[in-house]
């Protein structure tokens, strides 16, 4: 228990330092842009493919039940609500925890093991600001954007599955999908993924940057980054949903 509290304290202090250093010059614009491209563009195929597959499978599953109860016309609406409100943000967060989190943890731990971080410090460059801050900021920026790709590719997958079954037109599918969708169903869940990004970036960087176990630390940092980030994302999701319901009470109905 004491170790858990100690760990939470260390990660929180690490995250706080990221926020403080982000607002302190020199601003690492080039490094941030590089990391956003790294996190965003390299994760895009995975996110789109996963969203598309999930959308298709979800339509297969929900269709039978909804048609049985005479609610076949609700399929696009249910689909869009499920994707925009929960599936898109959460699945994107978990996918990125796996792909990006393990990468950040392993890269930083390897840099520590091969003295590259010491090399940066020896050149009078603040290694935390140069290596950690851009990675965390990149995760915070990229997650909401990737979530949008997940949402819309899921919608496309759902449409194709529904089209195969009922020959519904794209125009009708889209108009039904967005019929019940309010702005409050769209932007709070999408923006909450910025918090997921903060979790992934901070936790993974923490494990990678602070390891002192050489080559063994690389594997440990990678695994711990994925496990702890995923767990914290799920826990944060619960808290954030309650916050969204508090701010937008109509969403809770």
């Amino acid at each position, binding site marked *: 228990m004491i170790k858990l509290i100690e760990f939470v304290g260390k990660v929180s202090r690490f995250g706080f330092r990221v926020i403080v250093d982000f607002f302190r010059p*020199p601003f690492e614009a080039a490094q941030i842009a590089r990391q956003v491209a790294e996190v965003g563009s390299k994760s895009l195929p995975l996110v789109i493919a996963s969203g598309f597959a999930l959308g298709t499978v979800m339509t297969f599953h929900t269709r039978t039940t909804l048609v049985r109860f005479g609610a076949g016309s609700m399929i696009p609406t249910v689909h869009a609500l499920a994707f925009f409100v929960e599936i898109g943000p959460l699945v994107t967060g978990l996918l990125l925890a796996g792909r990006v989190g393990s990468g950040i943890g392993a890269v930083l731990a390897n*840099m520590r093991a*091969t*003295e*590259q971080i*010491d*090399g*940066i*410090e*020896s*050149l*009078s*460059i*603040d290694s935390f600001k140069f290596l950690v801050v851009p990675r965390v900021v990149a995760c915070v920026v990229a997650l909401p954007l990737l979530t949008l790709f997940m949402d819309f590719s899921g919608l496309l997958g759902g449409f194709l599955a529904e089209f195969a079954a009922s020959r519904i037109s794209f125009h009708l599918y889209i108009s039904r999908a967005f019929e019940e969708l309010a702005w409050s169903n769209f932007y709070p869940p999408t923006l909450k993924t910025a918090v997921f990004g903060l979790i992934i970036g901070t936790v993974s960087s923490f494990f990678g940057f602070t390891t002192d176990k050489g080559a063994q630390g690389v594997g440990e940092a990678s695994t711990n980054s994925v496990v702890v980030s995923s767990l914290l994302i799920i826990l944060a999701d619960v808290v954030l949903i309650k916050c969204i319901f508090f701010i937008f009470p109509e969403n809770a109905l």
Partner: protein
Amino acid sequence: MIAENEAAVTFDRVSKSFGPKQVLRDVSFEVSAGQTLCILGRSGTGKSVTLKLLISLMKPDHGNIWVDKHEITRLKEADLSKVRRKMGFLFQDAALFDSLTLYENLALPLHRLTDKTQEEIDSIVDRVLGQVGLGNDQRKMPSELSGGMRKRAGLARALVLEPKILLADEPSSGLDRITAAEIDELLIEQKTEHQTTLIVVTHDVHGARRVGDRFAVFDKGDLVANGTAAEVEQSENETARRLISEY
């Protein structure tokens, strides 16, 4: 600017432990400007730790470390950064940034720590890489370089900010005799042409005797001998005598 014969580096009763293991015990020595000190000793006797303490990658448990008249153990990060800029560090495995090309590895500190224009940076990188014989390898990634080339690239990065003090951790480890001799030549050239103060940690006594003016021998965390080669050969400590004559 450090005047000749003035102490460039002073270690004053420095101790350092990792958990229960004491790696340095009350170590004191001085290196004059322009001089080369070679630190010898068996593995795990605190030689590399000494270099990392010097550039403040680690803090000592006790004692004071002076670099160019600045006591660095209590300096704030901003002031420490200014002192570090007077030093270059050649790491044992070169520690090049593996996501950057050789050119980018050298240009990075110039971009971040100086006001030089792109043309000036290009010309400095060109010159320094040419100096170590890697003028045609600017676009290569560190993974494309051989062991000797990596070492030379590490040396080039350590020299790119024209340091007054160069710290080298095992510059010839893992290299054949010819490549090791080439690295030694580059260190000697740096010393004679630029009057750089060198502190070299090495196991290669042959190379050390070519490069060094003075020799410090560490054994089990203690500095057991410190002086010229002739003085260390006459030392009362057997380890020191054996190490300095082992070539």
